[in-house]
């Protein structure tokens, strides 16, 4: 059924369709409307779940550790400082191989309060072990929630979906909300091999000596990498049932491109329009939409970007002292290629600063015309 939905409501719908059993969420702008919506649908019975109204994000994630270990599907949503407060538990969840799904509204990280779009929050969780998938539209967010549980429960890894504050969280779009029966077909109930079980008492998360810990960490790494094989399968099945196509990484008009712009989140839509416009003008530009950031789909990136002369990576995040993190990782992925492209790292739109088609065109032109050695971040739009 097609509905007009804000991004946050699409998330709540996603959780409902997945029949999550335990929800534990703590409010933070711009995620708050998810909490509100989930409260309503839990109260009305539309969603038959336990909603634990915790006293912090740290506890939100910790309750899900309990719930998920006890073998039920668990969900939470957060943003920015909330995500950072969870940090310790995020590591725990991945190490414990708990298939929790969380949506994070990308918001700038304080000090100096800022509630607007910026990916530094989720980027700074990249080593927790959580899978990260960056979304561009409300539809994608909703669909991704459903696919995330399929993926997470198969490989026993937690999945974080992110999308931009306000640009998506609070923007109303037309969203096709699938029938719950179809979702049931796609996503069977969660039935883990091991859970907290009186009849099969096991201990979860015990102390691991150096004799085991290294191998344990390796299994976490292996599990994460399994996503690269399994997620395309999930996407295919999803397409067969729901008719919408997703992938680990998506290409747009990259044929014969001289320059490919790599983006995430809502900036992707701006780039897409700009690419269309520039292609019409005969310019050889393309787009690579980076969805899955953890695990890193190195092979996909290489196959898309390996034959192009120049790559622009736009980062709406900043690792001070380095620059944008996506650019850094893309460079690292391509470095061992013999004909590696020149890479132009661009930082733009921090803290919700608007990034317009004109900005994108400017950035592309800069890259095309520049003979600068690649690799030095360009702070686009910085008031100098």
């Amino acid at each position, binding site marked *: 059924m097609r509905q007009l939905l804000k991004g946050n409501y699409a998330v709540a719908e996603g959780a409902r369709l997945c029949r999550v059993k335990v929800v*534990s969420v703590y409010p933070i702008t711009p995620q708050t409307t998810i909490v509100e919506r989930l409260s309503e649908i839990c109260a009305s019975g539309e969603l038959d779940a336990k909603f634990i109204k915790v006293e912090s994000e*740290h506890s939100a994630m910790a*309750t899900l550790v*309990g*719930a998920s*270990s006890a073998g039920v599907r668990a969900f939470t949503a957060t943003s920015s400082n909330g995500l950072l407060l969870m940090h310790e538990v995020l590591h725990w969840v991945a190490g414990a191989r708990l298939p929790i799904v969380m949506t994070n509204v990308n918001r700038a990280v304080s000090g100096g309060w800022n509630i607007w779009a910026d990916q530094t929050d989720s980027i700074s969780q990249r080593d927790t072990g959580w899978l990260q998938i960056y979304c561009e539209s409300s539809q994608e967010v909703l669909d991704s929630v459903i696919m995330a549980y399929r993926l997470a429960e198969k490989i026993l890894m937690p999945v974080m979906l992110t999308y931009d504050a306000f640009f998506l969280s609070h923007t109303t779009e037309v969203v096709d909300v699938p029938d719950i029966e179809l979702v049931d077909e796609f996503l069977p109930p969660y039935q883990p091999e091991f859970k907290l079980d*009186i009849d099969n008492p*096991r201990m979860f998360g*015990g*102390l691991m000596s150096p004799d085991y810990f290294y191998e344990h960490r390796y299994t976490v790494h292996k599990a994460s990498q399994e996503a690269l094989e399994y997620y395309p399968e999930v996407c295919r099945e999803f397409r067969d049932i729901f008719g919408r196509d997703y992938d680990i990484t998506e290409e747009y008009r990259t044929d014969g491109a001289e320059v490919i712009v790599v983006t995430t989140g809502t900036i992707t839509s701006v780039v897409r329009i700009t690419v269309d416009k520039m292609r019409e003008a005969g310019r050889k530009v393309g787009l690579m939409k980076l969805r899955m950031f953890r695990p890193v789909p190195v092979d996909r990136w290489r196959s898309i970007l390996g034959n192009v002369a120049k790559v622009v990576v736009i980062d709406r995040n900043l690792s001070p002292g380095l620059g944008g993190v996506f650019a850094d990782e893309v460079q690292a992925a391509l470095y061992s290629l013999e004909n590696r492209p020149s890479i132009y790292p661009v930082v733009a739109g921090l803290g919700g600063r608007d990034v317009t088609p004109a900005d994108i065109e400017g950035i592309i032109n800069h890259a095309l015309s520049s003979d600068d050695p690649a690799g030095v971040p360009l702070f686009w739009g910085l008031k100098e």
Partner: protein
Amino acid sequence: MERTTQRMIEIPRDVMTGEELWQPGVLSCQGCGGSLAMKLALKGLGRRTVIVLPACCMSIIVGAYPYSTSQVPLLHVPFETAAAGASGVRAALDIRGEEDVVVMAWAGDGGTFDIGLQALSGAAERNEDILYVCYDNEAYMNTGIQRSGATPAGAWTTTTPDKAVKEESKKDIERIMLSHDIPYMATASVAYPADIYAKFKKIRSIKGTKFIHILSPCPPGWQIDSADSIKVSRMATQSNVFPIYEVENGKYTINVYPEKEVTVKEYMKTQGRFRYITDDAVNAAQEWTDRKWEKLKGMLK
């Protein structure tokens, strides 16, 4: 006032000799009160129990991967998340239709009085149907004896060294918990095992948040001989430093009126950790203890 001494034969024989849910081979120090408290608690609770365990000595005692001494399911969680973790397990078990399974968060004093207090307060305020147990060895023992909010005034720890032993009194966790209006709050001590057994048996039939605070001696941390750990704990109660009582829906009952009375000084004398205390501080501790005891007795009316 009814006087109670301890006649330890009150734990039924078949329970004591029956199924051991806490098996030997545990990694506790000699004479550890924590391991003993857990063994006794499980005697009262029985098999249909899930343990949620944050960082503390017990997370070591229970055994290391891939082994576990616990014969009931056990979930390790981060240091400050015992109550939250337990809330989550509770929710999941309710969904699974296993409402009768007791979810027991088992945390140290550090995990309770200090770092875990927020999550605990949250869970208690929501009146989660969980049992929260604080086994209190009065310092951060796992990390090597650092002061906690539960460390008594006058005690040496590695962060309150000989020239600056702890000045502040122990935090009144019972009052904090009672201010949440939880249905059941109790203190207990490994020196009174039958009382522990009875309390853990009782909580099975109480819905909502149950809090049990168990004094649990730590020979290395208290600097006592391992053989004396029960004796010293008993003196804590005999001196009223650690009274044994319970509050059920607001109604106070003192469970142990020790027949023998001991001064705070005598109690402190038994432990190396108090060897730097000044006479003034001993007197202050005695006053503090008397005041609290009088107040407690006042609550009976």
